[in-house]
């Protein structure tokens, strides 16, 4: 299985570059560090399955986001209500506040609390665009939709989040 060894280094390169982003992407969806870690690992394993088969992967980043998105959808289906409860009751892991001052931390907490109130699609668009700083073009590749459509939807999702934040 020489091909496996040939693909190993590029794969680990992708892991080093995107592990944090994918973890975050999962974390915002599941609101649980451990679940998000499991999901991240699963996403990379799936990417590996593609890579070792020698499939031509044009954009591993977009593929990873797509895989993670699908894993999250599966997870939502299984325990949608539970995740919301955890979020409302337990709040977030304090370890995420590393290096933040208190004010930032409060805003930070507020946004995190509000994000799951958005529809999964809106939440996805917001995190990809503003947290991960992906361009609408990149997002359109992940979501397999037209760039224009994506731009319009990002704009609307942000408006909805602003509305939510005002009601605090």
């Amino acid at each position, binding site marked *: *299985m020489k091909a*496996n*060894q040939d693909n*190993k280094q590029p*794969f*680990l390169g992708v*892991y*080093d570059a995107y*592990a*944090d982003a994918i*973890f*975050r992407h999962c*974390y*915002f969806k599941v609101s649980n560090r451990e679940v998000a*870690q499991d999901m*991240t*690992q699963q996403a*990379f*394993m799936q990417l*590996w399955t593609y890579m*070792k088969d020698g499939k031509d992967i044009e954009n591993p980043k977009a593929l990873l986001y797509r895989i993670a998105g699908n894993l999250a959808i599966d997870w939502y289906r299984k325990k949608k209500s539970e995740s919301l409860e955890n979020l409302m009751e337990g709040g977030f892991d304090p*370890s*995420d506040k*590393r*290096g*933040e001052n208190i004010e*930032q931390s409060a*805003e*930070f907490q*507020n*946004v*995190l609390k509000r994000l799951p109130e958005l529809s999964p699609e809106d939440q996805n668009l*917001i*995190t990809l665009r*503003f*947290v*991960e*700083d992906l361009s609408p073009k990149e997002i359109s590749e992940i979501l397999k939709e037209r760039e224009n459509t994506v731009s319009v939807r990002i704009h609307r999702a*942000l408006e909805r*989040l*602003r509305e939510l*934040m005002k009601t605090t």
Partner: protein
Amino acid sequence: MKDITEILKSLRNVRLDAHEKNAMRSRLVQHIDSEVSIPSPVVSWYGILWSHQFKVGYASLFITLSVGSTVVFAAEQALPGDILYAVKTKVNEQVERAFVPSEPIQLAQFETKLVERRFEEAEKLDEKKLLVKEDTKSKAREEIEKQTEKAEKAIAKAHTINQIEVTSALVQPVAEPTANMMMRSFSVSENDNDDDVEDDQSSKRGKNSDSSSRKEQSNDDGDDNDRRGKDNDTQEDEDDESDLEKVFKKHSDIVKKLDIKKNNRSRDDR
């Protein structure tokens, strides 16, 4: 309050810590390396049987079976000149033939039954006024003649074998009545005094085999048995009409209409 996009950017601080990241990395490396050592995935029969190719196979098998059985059933009603007629004679009847017990007498009965069937088809064509068409007429005639030839061959074979069986039955007289019965049901006329040419022709073959087997009898079994063998022939003589001839008599109007001469071929052979 900061702009919301700024706050969202700060969420980028959510990340795996170094330890978590390294641990996950080594789990992935382990996963990759473990795959290297596994020579091939375990082949499950369940997986193979439900693989895409097999599903396609099942679907086509199902379609073939359902289309095939529809065709076969539809063919049952086909008449000479129909597209499905070949299916009827070459598939359906071949299958039926395969289920006929291997006794020559039963095969002869079966072939005679098919002659009857050919006549019935011709009658149906006649009812539908299709026999006026020359090509349909010749097809119907051809089918009857073809089947008659098959029946004649089967009868001749059964007859020859019966003679041999009768011979052996003479050694064991208990079995004799059965052998006689079988012979009678498929006897070919022995009457030479008739001016009927057809009878004359059909009896030729029967006679030849008779005489040869009779020779065997006299050689093997002596005078007594020879006389008993002649008794059999006498019994046979009384039954001067074979099943095949009965069929021809029954459908005499079609025989006339199609101008079928039963022993055309044997006459040519001669």
